[in-house]
């Protein structure tokens, strides 16, 4: 697993608001510790050491008459910060609406991940948080990440580094294959669960949909975590080499733009139609989706695709005759 941290990178001077905001979370933390190396503060609060020193020196100069210079008792010597008697800014600023939402939504979502324990530390922490944030019970903000059958087994394989043999139905080729994979990352996105795994067939890191795994069994081989950093979940349709098509969607078909990754989605016109551009990751998938949409979708720049959908409809129709 990668534990890559965000780099401190910025251009130009930091705005006063950002500096003050950071100072107001830094001071209460420092006051609890009394003595901390500058480097540790910089690391924790994503600042450079020079920025930490600059802002703390500035804070030490703040003060109100008649107590000028005594508002914040801070002293830096040989790379160590010493905090004297705590006065003001002992407690952090309250959480704003956005931060409150972020915390609760993240916590509730994580409770839906495989292996979460309602009586564990996350469940207990969330309960304390919800009370402070005005939620009298937990039923008013819910996250539901319905897990298909093999999700928990995949999660166990990810955590233990177990190689597994799966039968997998590929929507793009409409066939079931047996492959040996080492699950590396499991994530939920747009209501579906995916597993990123080292795939023996292609020799690459591939993404599979968990609900399309038809069977799974361990090979009893344990493979230590690889050093290759995992891409952030969600960035998996970015391949620029894949062919793109442009489709105009009627209001009834707009769910497609919300459900699948799109390169571009236009602003709706007066009738509520949108024009989208998307990667053709799989022609089979696209034909099937266009069949579902029927006349609510119009392919603008690939006449052969429109013809293929018509032929597909004729093929399905043959079943009914």
């Amino acid at each position, binding site marked *: 697993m990668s534990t890559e941290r965000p780099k401190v990178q910025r251009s130009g001077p930091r705005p*006063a608001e950002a500096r003050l905001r950071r100072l107001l*979370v830094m001071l209460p933390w420092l006051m609890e510790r009394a003595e901390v190396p500058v480097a540790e503060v910089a690391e924790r609060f994503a600042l450079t050491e020079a920025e930490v020193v600059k802002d703390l020196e500035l804070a030490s100069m703040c003060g109100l008459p008649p107590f000028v210079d005594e508002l914040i008792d801070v002293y830096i010597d040989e790379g160590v910060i010493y905090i004297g008697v705590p006065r003001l800014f002992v407690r952090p600023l309250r959480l704003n609406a956005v931060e409150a939402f972020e915390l609760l939504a993240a916590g509730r979502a994580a409770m*839906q991940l495989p292996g979460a324990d309602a009586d564990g530390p996350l469940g207990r922490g969330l309960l304390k948080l919800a009370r402070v944030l005005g939620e009298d019970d937990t039923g*008013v903000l819910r996250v539901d990440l319905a897990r298909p059958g093999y999700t928990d087994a995949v999660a166990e394989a990810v955590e233990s580094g177990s190689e597994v043999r799966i039968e997998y139905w590929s929507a793009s080729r409409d066939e079931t294959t047996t492959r040996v994979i080492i699950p590396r990352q499991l994530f939920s996105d747009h209501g579906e669960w995916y597993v990123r795994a080292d795939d023996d067939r292609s020799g690459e890191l591939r993404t599979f949909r968990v609900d399309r795994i038809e069977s799974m069994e361990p090979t009893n081989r344990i493979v230590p975590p690889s050093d290759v950093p995992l891409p952030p979940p*969600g960035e998996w349709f970015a391949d620029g080499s894949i062919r793109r098509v442009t489709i105009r969607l009627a209001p009834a078909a707009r769910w497609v733009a919300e459900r699948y990754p799109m390169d571009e989605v236009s602003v709706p016109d007066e009738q509520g139609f949108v024009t989208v551009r998307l990667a053709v990751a799989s022609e089979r998938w696209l034909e099937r989706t266009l069949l579902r949409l029927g006349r609510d979708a119009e392919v603008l720049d690939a006449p052969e695709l429109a013809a293929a959908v018509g032929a597909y409809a004729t093929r399905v*129709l043959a079943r009914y005759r």
Partner: protein
Amino acid sequence: MADRVERLTNLLALLLETIEPLSLVAVAGRLHGQYPDGQTAMRAAFERDKAALREIGVPIEQTIVSGGAEAGQTRYWIDRERYELTDLELDPDEMRALQVAMAATRPGSASGQEAMWKIGAGLLEHGAAIAAIIPDDPWLPTLRESVANRVQVRFGYRGVDRLVDPWGLLLRTGFWYLIGFDHEREERRTYRIDRIEGAVEQVVGSTFERPEGFDASTAFPDDPKLIGADPNVPDARVLIDAHRAGAAIRELGANRVATTNPDGSVEVLVPYANMQAFRSWLLGYGEWAEVLEPASARKAVMSWLERVAAQ
């Protein structure tokens, strides 16, 4: 003139410490030499600072003097109770768990990082091995606050202005939903939050009662095919070829299987009160599925296919 951060910090300290509300002139007097002398420039600088503090989330209270020589003058202060984060009394393992939760579901969120710092946790890590992507919407924080504080909201939806008692929020099938009581329609309604038109406004001073035992997760059906489901409409019977039978059983559950045929194909029972959702689901199985009955569903699917074929 002082560094702006210094002036902002001093202003914040002054408004927190003051025993009585302070006018602009009193503030400038106490922070001697930090604000410009001219009235207009002083007012402009102070307004900018006040906006900056509010932007950070500092609740600045204000009152207007009602009588005497200074009637009409605005005075400011900060209520420490409202300013400070209530002590959450989080144990270290609970803080750590919340941090892991944030890293797994909101990696890269600047507000999430701010929240972590405020509760005393550290820098978020990236690249959790077990993760979920939670969709964003600019109105979610306002809606959550309204749900928690029981404040009514107004917003546009499907071209109609709504007044809603927001009962709860639910993330399901990748979308956020608001469930509440719609005063225009006078009934309980569910709204897709990303389809809200324009802004969500809180109705100042309003309140409402949530039904006892309300739970957002049981408030509307799981399955889109069930939305608008009518107990009087019987299920459709659908034949799924052996090739996709396993997937259909996993999707629908074994209790939806009516018949298993010798060739491995199955006949499943699927609600079809919502014809559009049913057809879309069925065609997702492509040439591997066929609706057998009722005849009306069969006919509707055939005519849809004929239209697409002739397109």
